[in-house]
């Protein structure tokens, strides 16, 4: 039987049970959760940064107090988790839930999970409204610690079924990594000794899952942080922007005013403007050269930056010149003359051999044909277009 989503509807005079009223809330929540799960990717949306403050005991021993900044995350079930206030991490909870190891360099992951819990019943309601039953559900959260390496399996967490709403966190908890803490058992302080915040490579941040992104304004901007963010690294951005002359794609640093300082600009005409150097590419219309000494049987090396596939495909023209290199000691009894010296035009394999002659005897006698080396020049001409 086909499962269909149902939307609450009411009629005049209807006596509304609590379940129908709850269903109106659940309908919207489930729809939002499915949107978050399938139109976006789960992770940290904003904030939720771990920071550590170095603290000392009266005897001078140092440790670290670690706090979590306010923020919002969306877990893999589509549940929104809101941490409204700055939260100190509890070292006592850490010691009870994780068995700290002697290695003080270990990093213990810190996770955020969501949990629904009944709010206390309102105590001000009286009469027919007086009740001990909860009239709201608190969308709470937990900060949990894990053993080193337990963050490696986060991508294996089980997604809910297609039509499910957000998980309530009671049976299954979806973990969102916040960062890492360190612990030194030798100090005896039972305090954190270090914190390792997330970065772009270690954190899972909320994203967009879309096959098409279309802008209504004629300009589309992708940036590593909001323009007004105070990040220690330069904020980078890519902008595609229409213009009466054709428009362009620009990559560069994003200023606090939201404009990009261009590092690379690609115009709609195909022109590329770069403020830096292009390495690894061969400029059309250029000539690339390689030269040196090579031994019999070798394949002559190409100039740097020339792609062997371009040579094989015939998109560049290769010119090869070799000449025998007679630099071994010569004498009338062992006078080396070139026997062969050429390079195969298609494979660039060198054939270079010499033959020593003895001119002290009459008539001159030839020695064994011997592989030798040659001077080579390889010139690659790149077509202008």
């Amino acid at each position, binding site marked *: 039987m086909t499962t269909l989503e149902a939307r609450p509807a009411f009629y005049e005079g209807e006596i509304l049970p609590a379940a129908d009223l709850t269903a109106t809330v659940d309908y919207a929540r489930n729809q939002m959760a499915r949107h978050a799960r399938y139109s976006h990717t789960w992770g940290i949306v904003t904030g939720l940064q771990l920071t550590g403050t170095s603290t000392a005991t009266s005897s001078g021993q140092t440790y670290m107090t670690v706090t979590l900044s306010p923020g919002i995350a969306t877990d893999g079930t589509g549940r929104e988790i809101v941490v409204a206030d700055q939260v100190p991490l509890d070292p006592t909870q850490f010691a009870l839930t994780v068995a700290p190891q002697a290695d003080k360099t270990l990093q213990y992951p810190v996770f955020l999970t969501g949990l629904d819990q009944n709010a206390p019943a309102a105590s001000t309601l009286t009469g027919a409204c007086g009740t001990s039953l909860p009239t709201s559900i608190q969308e709470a959260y937990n900060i949990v610690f894990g053993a080193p390496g337990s963050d490696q399996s986060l991508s294996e967490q089980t997604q809910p079924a297609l039509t499910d709403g957000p998980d309530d966190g009671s049976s299954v908890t979806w973990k969102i990594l916040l960062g890492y803490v360190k612990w030194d058992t030798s100090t005896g302080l039972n305090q954190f000794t270090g914190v390792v915040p997330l970065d772009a490579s270690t954190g899972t941040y909320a994203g967009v899952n879309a096959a098409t992104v279309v802008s209504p304004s004629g300009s589309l901007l992708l940036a590593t942080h909001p323009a007004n963010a105070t990040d220690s690294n330069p904020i980078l951005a890519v902008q595609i922007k229409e213009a009466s002359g054709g428009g362009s794609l620009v990559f560069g640093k994003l200023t606090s005013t939201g404009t990009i300082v261009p590092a690379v600009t690609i115009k709609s005409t195909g022109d590329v403007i770069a403020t830096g150097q292009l390495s690894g590419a061969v400029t059309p219309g250029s000539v690339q050269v390689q030269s040196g*000494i090579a031994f*019999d*049987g070798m394949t002559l090396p190409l100039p740097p930056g020339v792609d062997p596939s371009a040579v094989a495909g015939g998109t560049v023209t290769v010119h090869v010149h070799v000449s025998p290199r007679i630099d071994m000691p010569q004498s009338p009894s062992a006078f080396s003359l070139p026997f062969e010296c050429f390079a195969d035009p298609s494979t660039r394999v060198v054939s270079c051999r010499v033959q020593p002659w003895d001119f002290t005897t009459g008539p001159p006698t030839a020695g064994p044909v011997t592989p030798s080396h040659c001077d080579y020049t390889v010139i690659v001409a790149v077509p202008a277009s």
Partner: protein
Amino acid sequence: MTVNMGLIYLASTFNVLAAFTRGAEPSSIETVPDTFVGSGLRVRLPWDQSDPAFPTLGFVVDAAHLTFAEFAANPAVVVNSRNYYIDATGKPAPYTLAAFGTPAQTAGKFAFSIPKVTPPVASSAYLLLVQSWTGGSTQPVPGTLIAGNVTPVDLSSSYPTGSGNFHVLICIGGYAPTVVEISV
């Protein structure tokens, strides 16, 4: 500017088979010899032109048996690369051991013994490259680590029947490679 030389040598026996220099170094140095050997490094040794086998003498050593390294250019090595091997320190060194003698073939069989005046260098191995006089592909025959003054080789199971003449390039660690002719 430091000028480098590239040496292509056998990975199992460390015999240098080719050397080259280049004026323009790439931005990332190659770590495998494929760029310089194509489908295989052609190896020829000094041979008398009057020998009927002369036109076909030439082994093609697959890149799988080769390795590549760069060193500061040494003209003596570049122009005489076949006289060098890579020693235990990982640097090119000239052969010092006296060349091994002509292998004594067991009549009628593809079996022979390689006599050496001096035992091979430590941790050496041998590699045989076999090619028919009439040409064709090179058949590599890897050997195990060897010691002592005599190395017996028996390839009878590979060439059990028929007759023919073969070139065998014998590569032993610490010795200059030598080509011998085997008639079965």
